[in-house]
């Protein structure tokens, strides 16, 4: 199992702990905009790019579906496949929302993943650094944000 690669160093320790404790095969932590913060289990930037885009879209749809059906956004989503299962949930730290998507198999279970994700959330809340002044990014620059985060995780295109 390879260590996570991260775009923001402070998430490395909690992400490693989550990966090991919950026995996840792969996972991505991202902002709701689709920008990746850290990942493990992937060696290909294109895979992470697809997952970020899909997770961001699924979160938006599920959030709206939750609002329509339950009056509030759904908190987590679980899909059990024949061999592998997907767990997707929101976490927040210092007012900033994050999305996490993880894949596991019969070596783990949904209950175990939920427990360690709860601990992961607490760790994020505790470790989140004060927000730094960031370079303003044009609103709606989804592709640009995604590419910048992939560069941080896998290196610039051509050097990957």
């Amino acid at each position, binding site marked *: 199992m390879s260590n996570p690669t991260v775009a923001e160093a402070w998430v490395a320790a909690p992400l490693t702990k989550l990966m090991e404790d919950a026995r996840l095969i792969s996972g991505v932590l991202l902002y709701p905009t689709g920008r990746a913060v850290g990942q493990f289990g992937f060696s290909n930037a294109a895979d992470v790019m697809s997952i970020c885009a899909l997770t961001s879209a699924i979160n938006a749809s599920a959030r709206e579906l939750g609002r329509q059906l339950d009056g509030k956004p759904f908190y987590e989503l679980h899909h059990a496949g024949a061999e592998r299962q997907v767990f997707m949930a929101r976490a927040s730290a210092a007012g900033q929302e994050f999305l996490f998507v993880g894949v596991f198999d019969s070596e783990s279970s949904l*209950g*175990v993943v939920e427990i360690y994700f709860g601990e992961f959330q607490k760790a994020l809340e505790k470790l989140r650094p004060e927000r730094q002044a960031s370079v303003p990014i044009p609103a709606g620059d989804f592709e640009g944000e995604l590419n910048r985060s992939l560069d941080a995780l896998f290196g610039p295109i051509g050097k990957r």
Partner: protein
Amino acid sequence: MKSVTQIVASLSHVPGVVAAMIVGASDGLIVETSAMLNAEAGDTRKHTAALAAYLYSKVTRASDAARLGTPAFMRLEAEQGHICVVGARDVVLVTIVTPNANLGRVRLDMMTAAKGEA
């Protein structure tokens, strides 16, 4: 056949049982649970359920590997008490038990309940 609520209620009345739960064997999620006695230090049922089901699945693999067949009863002894687990097809029965409980009675009642559940 008893309902899951009846099974949990019955097990939770055995002297020394702090909490009784029926937990999904594959997902580790609680199907039915009793209230937790003496939960001043916090309610840990969800954690216990998920980890006990996970542990039981590993014990089952170890038992298979040793060619012993399916485990009949699992008891984890700790400083402050015991966790007992019995498998019943798609679910596992889990109890959290005090150190001075009558473990023979707990074991018998759990095995009987598991037979009814299976």
